[in-house]
């Protein structure tokens, strides 16, 4: 498959794709030392503003910068239109699925998704069974990871329905690009993204709990400054004009959530929480959690507060459940899925497992509950020992794994030490669901900075790019 890698700008020496022509000309006329200078400038700005992700306890710099690649990625209006329609459809189905799982469970009774895959899943929260949530929305902020393999071919790699992060990088990358390259930017007609936080606020307000009186008070709940995404939490709170609270800032009395303010207690209606389910309420979940609020779940169930994303939303982004999303689209919406899944073998199925064991060197094997690119085997890049090790693991607990073909991820021109060279990318658009569904054009492009690498995760040296969606 390696020879079929699709480059979004066009093969070197070949024809440059339409959206990239101006960029190509600009790259040709701009000396590399200017690009280097701009890249350093970008890094200085990120440091000064404090746009970092925190990695404590690993030694080295505790607050790191995610490498920012100065060359933007460009999508045509028509390309984006199709993606965007597909995203709305997919998120509708995901929400319907979560609502169904915690409601009537029709999809389980219809035998489309196996009951055990849901009920025995670590991400299933029985505490949510029968709890009504405002507007029936569970994943208010979803991040759908997509990859591209050809001009028309996009695949969904995974759904993130819990607390997807990265949107602040999408916004800051745009800011910095406009600041560093106004000349290039103005030669294109790029759809803006800076209304994201307004849309987010509107979404959160639209899902105020039923017992909310008057204008809802919205807060962002963060685990605190040692969380890797802390910058994003503070950024979003700031942009929305909402308080950024930590667990100890909140308390529950008579099933109502209050925050401690200098004027005394203030009632809270909507909590955009960036704390995982397990840590939300020590009375319901992990008793040792110091990040949560005792009694929060009671207030939630009483309809006195809304949590976004909903507790238990993770059931829809489990890698085993992922394989059923196209079926969900058909089941709940009666539509044909616009976005394709990557063909996936579920090793829980004996026949699939046999197939996978025979073809380990060609496949990507992922742990069902893994994330961040950990616990993953990339067959074609793995050593014989690594493959042997995974074979043993697979035999012991096949239900913990899924496998996919190695995709020839598209590449985009990227400014690296050797100059401008193709590097593999993915895309994480963000979808907001409240009373309506909204998608801001583009998303976060992650790029594997090392040549040939397919791992784009920031925890493993991946970088980001500004993503431009062109207007017609």
């Amino acid at each position, binding site marked *: 498959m390696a020879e079929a890698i699709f480059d979004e700008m066009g093969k070197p020496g070949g024809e440059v794709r339409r959206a990239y022509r101006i960029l190509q000309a600009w790259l040709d006329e701009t000396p590399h030392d200017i690009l280097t200078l701009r890249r350093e400038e970008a890094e200085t700005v990120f440091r000064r503003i404090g746009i970092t992700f925190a990695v404590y306890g690993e030694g080295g710099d505790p607050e790191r910068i995610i490498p920012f690649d100065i060359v933007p990625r460009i999508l045509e209006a028509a390309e984006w239109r199709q993606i965007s329609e597909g995203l709305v459809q997919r998120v509708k189905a995901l929400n319907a699925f979560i609502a169904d799982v915690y409601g009537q469970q029709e999809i389980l009774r219809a035998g489309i998704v196996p009951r055990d895959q849901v009920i025995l899943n670590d991400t299933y929260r029985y505490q949510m069974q029968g709890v009504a949530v405002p507007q029936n929305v569970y994943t208010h902020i979803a991040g759908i990871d997509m990859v591209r393999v050809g001009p028309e071919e996009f695949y969904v790699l995974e759904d993130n329905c819990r607390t997807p992060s990265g949107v602040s990088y999408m916004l800051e990358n745009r800011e910095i690009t406009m600041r560093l390259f106004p000349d290039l930017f103005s030669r294109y007609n790029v759809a803006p993204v800076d209304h994201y936080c307004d849309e987010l606020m509107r979404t959160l307000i639209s899902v105020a709990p039923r017992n909310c009186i008057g204008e809802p008070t919205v807060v962002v709940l963060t685990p605190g400054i040692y969380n890797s995404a802390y910058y994003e939490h503070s950024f979003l709170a700031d942009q929305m004009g909402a308080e950024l609270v930590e667990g100890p800032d909140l308390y529950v009395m008579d099933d109502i959530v209050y925050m401690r*303010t*200098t004027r005394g207690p203030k009632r809270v209606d909507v909590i955009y929480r960036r704390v995982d389910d397990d840590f939300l309420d020590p009375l319901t979940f992990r008793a040792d959690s110091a990040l949560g609020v005792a009694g929060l779940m009671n207030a939630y169930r009483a309809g006195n507060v809304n949590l976004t994303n909903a507790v238990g939303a993770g059931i829809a982004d489990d890698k085993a459940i992922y394989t059923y999303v196209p079926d969900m689209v058909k089941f709940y919406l009666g539509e044909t899925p616009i976005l394709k899944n990557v063909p996936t073998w579920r090793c829980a199925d004996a026949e699939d497992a046999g197939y996978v064991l025979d073809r380990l060197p060609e496949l990507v094997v992922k742990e069902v509950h893994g994330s961040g690119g950990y616990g993953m085997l990339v067959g074609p890049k793995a050593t014989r020992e690594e493959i042997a090790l995974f074979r043993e693991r697979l035999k012991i607990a096949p239900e913990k794994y899924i496998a996919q073909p190695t995709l020839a991820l598209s590449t985009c021109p990227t400014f690296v030490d050797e100059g401008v060279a193709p590097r593999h990318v993915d895309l994480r658009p963000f979808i907001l669901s409240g009373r309506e569904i909204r998608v801001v054009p583009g998303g976060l492009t992650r790029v594997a900075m090392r040549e040939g690498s397919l791992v784009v995760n920031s925890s493993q040296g991946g970088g980001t790019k500004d993503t431009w969606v062109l207007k017609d």
Partner: protein
Amino acid sequence: MLSRTADSLYWIARYIERAENLARTLRVTDRLSLMPSGADTDGNEWHSTVVVSGCEQAFYEKYDEATPENVISYLAFDPENPSSIRSCIETARRNARAVRTALTTEQWECLNAAWLALPGWNESRVRGSGLHRFLDWVKDCSLLFTGGTVATMLRRDSYYFTRLGTFIERNDNTARILDVKYHLLLPDHAEVGGGIDYYQWASILRAVSGHRSYNAIYREGLKPWLIAEFLIMREEMPRSLISCAAEIRNCLDRLGEEYGQRHECHRIAGQIHSRLRFGKVEDVFRQGLHEFLAEHIDLNDKLGLEISRSYLLG
């Protein structure tokens, strides 16, 4: 606003002010140690600096002697000393990161830049003339933060909590410098008004950035009782006790108006201000300068606790 946010703003300002005061004190001490000692203070200035900074006990648990190296290391760089300059800047920046949405860009960037530059300063780099460059840098950071606060922050609760931190800390610092250094310099046998060492006395003023200001107000040279009056009761002097008390009272009044409620802290602030405003410096000396200052420091501590109770703990 969140109580925790108010608390962080208050402590950011306190720690930055503390770092600046430490820098001034160290600077003066270092300068003093270069002078031929006239009064009977040989080596005592380093010890007294430890006393002023309020960490006498912890210091002598770690060191036997207050040598210049030990004191500079402990007060400027020691991560185990929560009030070392380095700890102050780190704590202020950590607090700032936790409440950065409540800070203006200028305030945040000033604190962040100070924190980013901090690793570049260490004991070996401040040997010799490096010390003064370091201390000047600390002072600059603080002035930039304080100036940035006044110039860019909206005049509402967040501003008044920040300013309260600055003045509560400054109030404490001026009182301590006066208390410790004054007694060190005033020899037991000398009458108030006896012969004094010009450099030594000037150092008290320099420590509160008041040397030239003093000369602008008093035309008769340095006199111990005038220095005391200057630092306690002169409203023109921005680091005097009365100036701090007036600012504190004003901040609390504004908060009281904004929230429509007054607390015990308002009463204590009024009490501290009034006894300076309507007191006489002769009475201070009659009571005993040390007793007066000890009482002042005590009241200031009590005020800090009451501010916490009313606003910062939630």
